[in-house]
């Protein structure tokens, strides 16, 4: 595939030519055809230009998965501005940080959102567009034709924010054409995505996994995608699957787990007979969950590893050859290697740091030259931070080389959870490490109490409740363990690897046993 001049223009024109009246997106009762998408993306580009936006300007999108989100993303790209889709679930302070960090010039969101409030204090945001699920007010007043701007090479094409180990998210900078890469090896050769497919991703457009499937795979193949604006709980997901009858379902292990608990074969609102494949990414799919999903539903589930930096899945299982418990083999277009901490290759069967190389890897982190040097190595390799073993070409995930946790497919920095827990008045010190509950990684809080407080079930409950108010769901600890002190290095750094061994093992979990 040769690189088009403006990727959004190329994708839109291609679908307008082959199937203008076909549904590009489905959302609730509404249908957005390719022709309507072309017109509204152009209107969006005209609107942004009228508001003073131009090439390279960062346009932060804080929107539920909706027609508005797709129109805004493509509209910004037509102008060669850089869309920055951000989760709609963050706190005002997080939006304030991201708006400032990327030097956002425009914000597209719904009226009175936390992001809109954050933008009021921004020194850079000059344009805030309030949107419904269909687009910003007054969009129809703008012309439906727009001459796409060629994207300048030295400016970001689009950006996604990914959590960092210190708790501050990093902007991952991609070129426009990186959006097309998932449709080649992963979408084309592995999944066989075609125009006949209907794609549904539980992962939102603000995540690389959701953006790659709902936008990249869908528009390159000329397929149709289903968008779910609300929170994807198990019953909402089944209802969407029954109603829109997708052929491909992209989801994450935590939700597959909850769906299996809710599944009642034969129930009218749980009809999943339309599915030809399920895909799992975001965190490792436990072996038992993989087997049970296939037994209960009869639909194959393919586990894979990808990243925001790769904007793609680079290792995954193959249809007809699923190995539950393994991440799979290298996706066409990528190379993968496992190395020790000194960078030397490790022998087969030995855990090593996973590096991948291929087309479409991020050019760097926005304004983070040091982090960029650590992850994007000079010879084109990306240090993923994942630890894997390889046996006969098949990779299996073994964890992380840093303290980061993957919970419900979200990156969680223990530092942020610790900060939240420490705001409880009884907590003197806290360290957070991952522990397995129901086969999936969850944050567990190891707490040292202030002298006047006594460890016990009541206080553990109080700390859990406090955390639920202070932190987003994926960061909430599911276990509180009390300690007299925390294991630390001579320099005072918490040894989280030692705490991981304690989770669910020794220690006083939730007070005493009954």
């Amino acid at each position, binding site marked *: 595939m040769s690189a088009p001049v403006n990727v959004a223009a190329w994708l839109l024109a291609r679908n307008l030519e082959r199937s203008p009246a076909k549904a590009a997106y489905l959302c609730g009762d509404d249908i957005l055809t390719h022709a309507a998408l072309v017109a509204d993306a152009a209107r969006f580009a005209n609107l942004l230009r009228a508001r003073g936006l131009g090439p390279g300007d960062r346009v932060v999108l804080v929107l539920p998965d909706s027609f508005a989100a797709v129109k805004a993303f493509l509209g910004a790209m037509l102008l060669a501005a850089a869309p920055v889709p951000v989760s709609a679930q963050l706190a005002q302070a997080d939006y304030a940080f991201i708006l400032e960090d990327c030097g956002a010039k425009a914000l597209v969101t719904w009226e009175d959102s936390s992001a809109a409030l954050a933008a009021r204090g921004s020194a850079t945001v000059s344009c805030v567009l309030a949107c419904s699920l269909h687009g910003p007010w007054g969009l129809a007043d703008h012309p439906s034709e727009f001459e796409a701007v060629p994207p300048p090479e030295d400016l970001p094409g689009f950006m996604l924010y990914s959590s960092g180990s210190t708790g501050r998210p990093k902007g991952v900078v991609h070129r426009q054409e990186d959006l097309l890469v998932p449709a080649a090896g992963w979408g084309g050769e592995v999944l066989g995505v075609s125009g006949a497919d209907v794609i549904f991703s539980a992962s939102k457009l603000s995540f690389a996994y959701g953006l790659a499937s709902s936008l990249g795979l869908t528009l390159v193949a000329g397929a149709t995608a289903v968008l779910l604006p609300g929170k994807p709980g198990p019953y909402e997901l089944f209802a969407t699957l029954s109603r829109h009858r997708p052929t491909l379902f992209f989801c994450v292990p935590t939700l597959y787990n909850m769906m299996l608990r809710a599944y009642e074969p034969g129930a009218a609102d749980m009809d999943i007979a339309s599915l030809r494949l399920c895909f799992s990414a975001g965190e490792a799919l436990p072996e038992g969950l993989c087997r049970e999903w296939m037994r209960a539903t009869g639909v194959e589930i393919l586990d894979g590893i990808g990243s925001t930096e790769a904007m793609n899945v680079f290792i995954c299982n193959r249809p007809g050859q699923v190995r539950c418990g393994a991440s799979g083999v290298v996706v066409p277009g990528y190379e993968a290697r496992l190395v020790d901490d000194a960078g030397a290759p490790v022998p087969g069967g030995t855990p090593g740091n996973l590096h991948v190389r291929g087309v479409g890897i991020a050019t760097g982190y926005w304004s983070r030259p040091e982090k960029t040097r650590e992850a994007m190595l000079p010879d084109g390799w990306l240090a993923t931070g994942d630890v894997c073993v390889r046996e006969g070409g098949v990779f299996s995930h073994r964890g992380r080389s840093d303290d980061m946790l993957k919970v419900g497919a979200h990156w969680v920095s223990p530092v942020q959870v610790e900060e939240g827990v420490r705001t409880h008045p009884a907590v003197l010190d806290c360290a957070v490490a991952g522990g397995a*509950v*129901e086969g999936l990684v969850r944050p567990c809080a190891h707490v040292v109490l202030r002298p006047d407080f006594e460890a016990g079930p009541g206080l553990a409950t109080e700390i859990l409740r406090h955390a639920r108010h202070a932190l987003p769901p994926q960061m909430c600890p599911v276990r509180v363990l009390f300690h007299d002190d925390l294991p630390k290095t001579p320099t005072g750094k918490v040894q989280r690897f030692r705490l991981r061994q304690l989770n669910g093992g020794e220690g006083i979990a939730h007070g005493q046993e009954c």
Partner: protein
Amino acid sequence: MAKSVEELRGLLEEAGLRPELVRALDPSAPLLKQGLDSVDLPTFCALVEDRCGVVLDEMTAMNLRTLDDFARFLAERG
């Protein structure tokens, strides 16, 4: 260690759920259908593991949908 449905309600409250939600739970209906979310359920499972000396791996946990399921499972484990 066996636990009655009432004792399990106590553990749900200890897991941080609102008492009025816990009191209203139908023990024979799926917990996920009655307002428990992706944090409540694993917190409750972790508490059941810690208090009752059992391990709820993914295969076991998947079949524990209702409070009655939990009570039956714990009774079988003695």
